[in-house]
């Protein structure tokens, strides 16, 4: 059993994917207080956009993915202005019903356009196969790519929220929306932008994830539980929390399935229950 290093690597990569797809949800939940169950739809939009760009129009993968993220961000922005804005002051039940309804609308729309089947998502040649990091430790080329890219994006998000003026405004609006508006921050525009960025990140995550986890219309529903696990474990509204939670979920899931395949599928749910009893407010509590 060549085991542990490979399991840790695979788990970290899987965690990175979960992080990218979930972090936008954490931002909307923490910042705007919206329980957006339709968040997975943005990951699916990114996935479908990249399929259309890369496979139908023949665009290079490395260009198609960022473009897919931009398209998703634009759609997210429009939906925020038209639909989600109305939900901010409503109760959680309204939000949950509305957004789960949106998931079904999205599933029907994408089935109508692309059919119920799975979409092709072949990788470019240079990302296929395995690379030997050192003798005996072969890792998937695409997984290595995901690890590096995920790391860069996570650092970018962290820097953007903690070190820029925009990030400071977001954090201000998060702790007190009315006060932030009172000191001259345009809260509406801020929300629009953060929502679009969150959607764009989900779109990027979706576009990057589909070569590993596939894409069909039921995507947003199928992986919803994983997004919610990451956000609730990490604590809503914290990027660091989401990252740590996603990595824990990824590593525990992969390690469990490798070492204890009999119990592997159940392990992460046990972990979630235990962690939420221990820290119901999430790993990194919102201040």
């Amino acid at each position: 059993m060549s085991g542990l290093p490979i399991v840790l690597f695979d788990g970290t990569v899987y965690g990175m994917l979960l992080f990218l797809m979930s972090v936008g949800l954490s931002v909307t939940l923490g910042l705007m207080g919206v329980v957006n169950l339709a968040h997975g739809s943005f990951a699916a939009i990114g996935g479908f956009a990249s399929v259309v760009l890369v496979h139908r129009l023949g665009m290079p993968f490395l260009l198609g993915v960022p473009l897919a993220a931009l398209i998703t961000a634009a759609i997210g922005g429009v939906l925020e202005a038209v639909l989600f804005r109305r939900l901010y002051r409503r109760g959680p039940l309204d939000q949950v019903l509305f957004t789960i309804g949106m998931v079904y609308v999205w599933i029907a729309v994408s089935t109508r356009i692309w059919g119920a089947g799975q979409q092709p998502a072949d990788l470019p040649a240079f990302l296929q196969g395995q690379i030997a990091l050192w003798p005996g430790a072969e890792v998937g080329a695409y997984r290595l790519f995901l690890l590096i890219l995920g790391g860069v994006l996570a650092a970018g998000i962290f820097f953007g929220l903690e070190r820029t003026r925009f990030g400071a405004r977001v954090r201000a609006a998060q702790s007190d929306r009315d006060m932030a508006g009172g000191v001259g921050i345009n809260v509406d525009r801020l929300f629009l932008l953060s929502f679009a960025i969150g959607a764009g990140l989900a779109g990027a995550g979706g576009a990057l994830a589909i070569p590993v986890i596939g894409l069909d219309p039921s995507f947003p529903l199928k992986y919803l539980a994983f997004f919610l696990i990451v956000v609730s474990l990490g604590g809503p509204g914290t990027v660091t929390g989401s990252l740590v939670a996603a990595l824990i979920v990824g590593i525990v899931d992969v390690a469990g399935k490798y070492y204890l395949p009999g119990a592997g599928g159940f392990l992460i749910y046990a972990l979630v229950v235990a962690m939420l009893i221990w820290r119901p407010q999430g790993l990194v509590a919102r201040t």
Partner: protein
Amino acid sequence: MTTPRSNPPAPLNLTVAVHDPARRRALKLVGAGALGAALSQVAGGIAFAADAEPLKIGLIVTYSGPYADYGKQMDNGIALWLKQNGERVAGRAVEIVRRDTAGPAPDLAARFARELITRDKVQVIIGLDFSPNAMAIAPVLSQAKVPCIILNASASDIPKKSDYIARISFTVGQVSAPMGTWAGRQGIRTAMTVVADYSSGADAETAFKTTFEAGGGKVVDSLRVPMNNPDFSAYVQRIKDTRPEAVFFFFPSGDLPNNFLKAAKERGLAEAGIRLLATGEAMDDSYMQAAGDAGLGLITTHHYSTAHESDLNRKFIAGYAADNGDYAPNYMAMTAYDGMAVLDKALTATGGKTDGATLMGALKGLSIESPRGPIEIGDKTRDIIQTVYVRRTERLENGKLACIEFDKFEKVQDPRA
């Protein structure tokens, strides 16, 4: 109604060339007479159709939600058979009453079955894409003595649940068991199984293990994967480290088989000398093209490949393409097509009688030629007996993947029959 019975326009055309008014009138009368005769023939046809009331068929299947494709495929298959056979089943017009369960919904299926029988007065029920739905309607069928032809549900026990059920689709065990035998014949001695953790997965695991070990092989490890499993890296790594000669996997058709194949390709299982074996679910027509290069060379056992070489299959595929364009048929369309053929043959044998006991009597032991090859409904089991093919996934000249049959097992039934 579409069959032409006479050719009346010919005398009418003559009038155009004639200029003498009197002769024209006379000819018009002739023309009108011919038309009248034709009309009376058509009326006779209508009267004939009215003699035998239309056959009422209840179709319980999925038309909405993530599995909406199932209903669409079956509708297309039924429509194609009717179109190719003069829109009649055993000489009678057909009225189909459709009910949508929107996926596995046993309560709903049972309610629909009751409504179809008591209110719509259907004479036979067909369809049933999900096993729990088929199980749920069994008591209703027994009570009402209404026959049912199962067009997809593949859990082993279904025909045992009611004497009024006949199945013409397949069972998971039926297509998994031949793979174990075939692998043994190839000289494969050690294998691992990986199945989705639900009842059909367990059926596949047991069926493969039984025949493979009967041939002298050994299953060294059996993995069960949760139904909702996005990332296969851990399982594939475990397979690679265990180093069996082959791995047999079963997942319901959908994204799981492709995700598994991609992880297997990425980790180089084939290069490590581990052969990949599966059932046809891994190469479902709606999903297989998305597998891409990762699907190439996969060996599968199944009852139907759209690439099956036979005249009837070519007729089926060409007819389907003519009606539905790029929307390709899958095994559900083919089974629904067969459903009509089976009903036609059974009703012809009963002389049109549709009461439960008579129709079930005709269905037992009935055999037809299907686009998949010869099929038979077991005399005692009321379950499908058919050829199971061994296929290799190859890329055709048009760039599409297809399952090319190269070996077969004849008259296979469910291993638990």
